[in-house]
């Protein structure tokens, strides 16, 4: 009988393979080398982090992607990569937004996690924790706003994301960081792309999926660069990397699910982001080139230049114009009387974009939202400034 030839790692051709990357079986050592190389290459070539002492703000959420990002950033800064030990002379600072204030209110079994040991001792990086409620003059307004938003869909999760985004940008500007690094891997970015499209943020696709995307922060006209250095990696790569490099355990917390308790019987708890992640994961399993096909197609999308690029003060994305009849109908604007009332009697109704309108539509006390009552002064300042 013919003996089956033992499989060997495609790269070193000596060790037994442990994982498949891009259809090739590779061993643990070559896998770590591959991930570290991809990260460094993305930072240098795709994100243009080339200058000495360039400052990088790494956003850390405690999830798997951002944990891997912090670990990789630490390795390149401290020259502790397993293989190519060339050091990058950059300043990395880790920012964590503490959501305990919200989580405690919505999740009974919530247990706060302390990441200080991981970031400061294990990764040896400067670490800053900012409480999510800290930008509100009255923190309880934030809880009230969340309770006022619709429990179904992803409204509450989207709202939390917007607040976090404002905190991150504000922190970056105030502390002199021009580069803000997010941890989404390619698979998550591909899901985000569909998610943005389905929510009506077609004009913002470029900011959602590019390696680096620059924009001018309206409050002080400073340039901010958003980076996605893990774009070349997949979920599987991140999970296996963490398995080999970190002992951290990750709690299963799905903010969107917990914030939307009454939709438990719907797929993905009625959360469009989660549903699209599952969709991409399923496609990816059957067709390994899914993620990179989606992302490379997204790179080719060009957006028709608008005469006036007005921005929404809530999401800071381009404020879309309603061009077609279909979009008008999906606005749920059957109550034209209410829309007219809000337009006439609230200060900011006309400045909010299509997608943020969709998020707020089902809320109670709409007037308060559209007058930005109790909102962080930062957002009100932006809303007053933006045309």
């Amino acid at each position: 009988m013919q003996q089956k030839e033992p499989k060997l790692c495609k790269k070193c051709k000596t060790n037994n393979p442990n994982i498949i990357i891009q259809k090739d079986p590779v061993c643990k050592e070559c896998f770590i080398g591959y991930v570290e190389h991809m990260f460094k290459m993305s930072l240098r070539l795709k994100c243009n982090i080339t200058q000495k002492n360039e400052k990088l703000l790494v956003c850390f959420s405690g999830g798997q992607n951002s944990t891997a990002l912090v670990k990789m950033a630490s390795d390149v800064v401290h020259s502790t990569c397993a293989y190519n030990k060339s050091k990058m002379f950059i300043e990395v600072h880790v920012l964590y937004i503490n959501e305990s204030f919200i989580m405690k209110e919505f999740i009974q079994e919530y247990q706060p996690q302390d990441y200080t040991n991981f970031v400061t001792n294990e990764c040896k990086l400067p670490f800053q924790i900012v409480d999510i409620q800290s930008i509100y003059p009255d923190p309880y307004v934030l809880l009230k706003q969340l309770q006022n938003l619709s429990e179904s869909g992803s409204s509450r999760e989207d709202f939390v994301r917007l607040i976090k985004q404002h905190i991150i940008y504000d922190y970056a500007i105030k502390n002199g960081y021009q580069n803000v690094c997010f941890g989404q891997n390619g698979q998550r970015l591909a899901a985000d792309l569909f998610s943005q499209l389905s929510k009506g943020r077609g004009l913002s696709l470029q900011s959602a999926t590019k390696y680096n995307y620059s924009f001018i922060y309206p409050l002080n006209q400073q340039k901010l660069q958003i980076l996605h250095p893990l774009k070349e990696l997949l979920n599987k790569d991140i999970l296996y990397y963490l398995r080999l490099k970190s002992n951290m355990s990750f709690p299963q917390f799905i903010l969107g699910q917990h914030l939307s308790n009454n939709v438990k019987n719907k797929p993905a708890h009625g959360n469009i982001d989660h549903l699209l992640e599952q969709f991409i994961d399923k496609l990816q399993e059957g067709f390994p080139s899914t993620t990179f096909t989606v992302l490379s197609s997204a790179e080719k999308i060009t957006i028709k230049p608008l005469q006036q690029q007005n921005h929404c003060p809530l999401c800071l994305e381009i404020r879309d114009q309603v061009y077609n009849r279909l979009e008008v109908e999906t606005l749920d604007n059957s109550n034209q009387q209410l829309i007219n009332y809000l337009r006439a009697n609230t200060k900011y109704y006309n400045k909010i974009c299509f997608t943020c309108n969709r998020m707020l539509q089902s809320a109670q006390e709409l007037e308060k939202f559209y007058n930005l009552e109790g909102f962080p002064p930062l957002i009100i300042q932006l809303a007053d400034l933006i045309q």
Partner: protein
Amino acid sequence: MKIIIDFGGGLDVCFENKKELTLEFEEQQIKMSDLIIRLKTLCNPQKLDFFYTQQLRPGILVLINDADWELEDKEEAQLQHNDRVSFISTLHGG
């Protein structure tokens, strides 16, 4: 024979918060598909989607003795006494 199973990425909530399980089988060699069938009887479906219809939910990384199960034809992979099987899930957002 004995198979050791561990859960990562919060999948332990489907198995009474146990991060590690040891399962005994009468046979001397089983396939991964047999193990999955056994796990399905132990899994609390209320907690999280561990299964997608009859199969394992896409997005869960499965390792047999720290090696990707895709190297061994997934459900067809043969398991032996004292093998360690790891199931690691991705988190939403993350």
